[in-house]
């Protein structure tokens, strides 16, 4: 028989809360947001690259010799004779079409997109790279947020990107690696700040984990870097026709790419689907390009399901997609 007040109190507290269950949509929301952030680190963590563009250029020259050579041996035993695959031919067509498009005039780009089921408006200032987002579904009266100060390359920085395929490839690879290093640096800095707030004990945990953070990073190949970086750059509406054209050439030269020229995006719009499985990150990343090569309609990533093994539960497939409904340009800052 429970005797002490403490035991009775314990019993009361359990009985009074026993019917409360944690809503699973909270977990789902948080996991989805974290996954999206993880993938977007590469897309939006580009602020640092503009300032260091000169350094990247040097690195590109230094590593340029190994890139294309290593690629041709891996893409499969065709003793020097160039044989274009159907995918490469399609990408070359897109490259030609992209070169014929025109750059819209204006300083501001307003994109309306669906991130999963959530509608959001993104406004990019192409002069300073600031990114603003408005998320009408996030709740009543949610104010617009400066999502990322100087988060995107500025028009001037984009104009300095190389527009020949081999130079662009080495540039993109160097840029991706630099972004990763920067993201790691930022992550550690944030961690240190958080730990000052949440208590000293995390300090020890941080120190012991620091080595593993670096070690646990997946090891991408140059082709992985080239594809993801090219795909992310293609998404940027502020790039010039010459750069778009060169990006398709870079994609055509990256092994492992699949192209479906009769695809449709999730809204049923016809598109050319360009996808590749990233063996380091274990997902397939896909870009749905408009058939006229003028813009990206949708980006998505699919992580395959894995079966249960060794007593661990299986993992269901994850699909994240961003569908761009409209892209408009203006000379003055648009409203949400």
């Amino acid at each position, binding site marked *: *028989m*429970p005797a002490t*007040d*403490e035991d*009775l*109190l*314990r*019993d*009361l*507290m*359990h*009985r*009074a*809360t*026993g*019917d*409360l*269950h*944690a*809503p*699973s949509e*909270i*977990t789902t929301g*948080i*996991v989805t*947001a*974290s*996954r999206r*952030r*993880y993938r977007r680190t590469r897309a939006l963590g580009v602020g640092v690259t503009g300032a260091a563009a000169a350094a990247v250029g040097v690195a590109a020259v230094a590593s340029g010799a190994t890139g294309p050579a290593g690629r041709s041996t891996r893409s499969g035993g065709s003793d020097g004779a160039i044989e274009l695959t159907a995918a490469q031919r399609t990408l070359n067509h897109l490259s030609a079409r992209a070169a014929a498009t025109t750059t819209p005039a204006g300083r501001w780009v307003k994109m309306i997109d669906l991130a999963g089921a959530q509608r959001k408006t993104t406004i990019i200032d192409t002069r300073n790279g600031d990114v603003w987002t408005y998320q009408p579904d996030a709740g009543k009266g949610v104010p617009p947020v400066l999502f990322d100060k100087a988060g995107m390359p500025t028009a001037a920085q984009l104009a300095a990107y190389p527009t020949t395929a081999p130079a662009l490839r080495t540039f993109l690879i160097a840029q991706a690696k630099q972004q990763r290093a920067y993201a790691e640096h930022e992550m550690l800095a*944030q*961690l240190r700040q*958080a730990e000052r*707030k*949440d*208590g000293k*004990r*995390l300090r020890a*945990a*941080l120190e012991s*984990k620091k080595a593993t*953070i670096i070690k*646990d990073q*997946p090891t991408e190949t140059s082709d992985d870097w080239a594809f993801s970086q090219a795909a992310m750059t293609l998404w940027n509406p502020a790039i010039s026709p010459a750069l778009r054209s060169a990006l398709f050439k870079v994609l055509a030269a990256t092994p492992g790419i699949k192209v479906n020229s009769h695809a449709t995006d999730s809204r049923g719009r016809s598109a050319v689907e360009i996808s590749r499985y990233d063996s380091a*990150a*274990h*997902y397939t990343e896909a870009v749905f390009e408009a058939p006229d090569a003028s813009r990206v309609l949708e980006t998505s990533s699919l*992580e395959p399901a894995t079966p249960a093994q060794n007593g661990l*539960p299986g*993992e269901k497939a*994850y699909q994240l997609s961003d569908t761009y409904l409209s892209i408009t340009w203006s000379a003055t800052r648009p409203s949400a």
Partner: protein
Amino acid sequence: MDKKQARAFESFVAESGDLLLRIATLLTCDVHLAEDVYQETLQRLAGRWSRVDNPRAFCRRVMHNIVIDQQRARQRRPPELELFAGYDSRDPRAGDPLAAVELRPSLLAALGTLSQQQRAIVVLRYFDDRSEGEVADLLGVSIGTVKSTASRAVARLREQPGLGALLATSDSH
């Protein structure tokens, strides 16, 4: 968060989510506020998932910090007298609604008369079954403080009319 981490995070929440939400409810004395605290806690946990050794301990600590922060924020506004609100018996998630619906308002009202520190110590000590040493460590106070605060808090709860009666009648269960 990569896929593997997302999986681990989800299974941690599947295992500990209910407990964390219940702790949050007892700490905040408000079912709706508790969900906000729970969500904020998980968000902070997700943000540094790969660097947290003991997620449960991390959540307890963070939850306590959030509740304190929220209280400070609320103290700047006029108090809302809504002690018995916040339970919807039509909530499909309710498991044993009858016992809970009767008990919860009086229990939360009684807990609400304690200071945040007293409440945290009572909840961690008797609901979450942490040892005195663990509670002291989590809250950054001495073991002596935990002991004396806990006994003062229990004595105070005894004095609450609603809870005093419940504590007296619980013997028959």
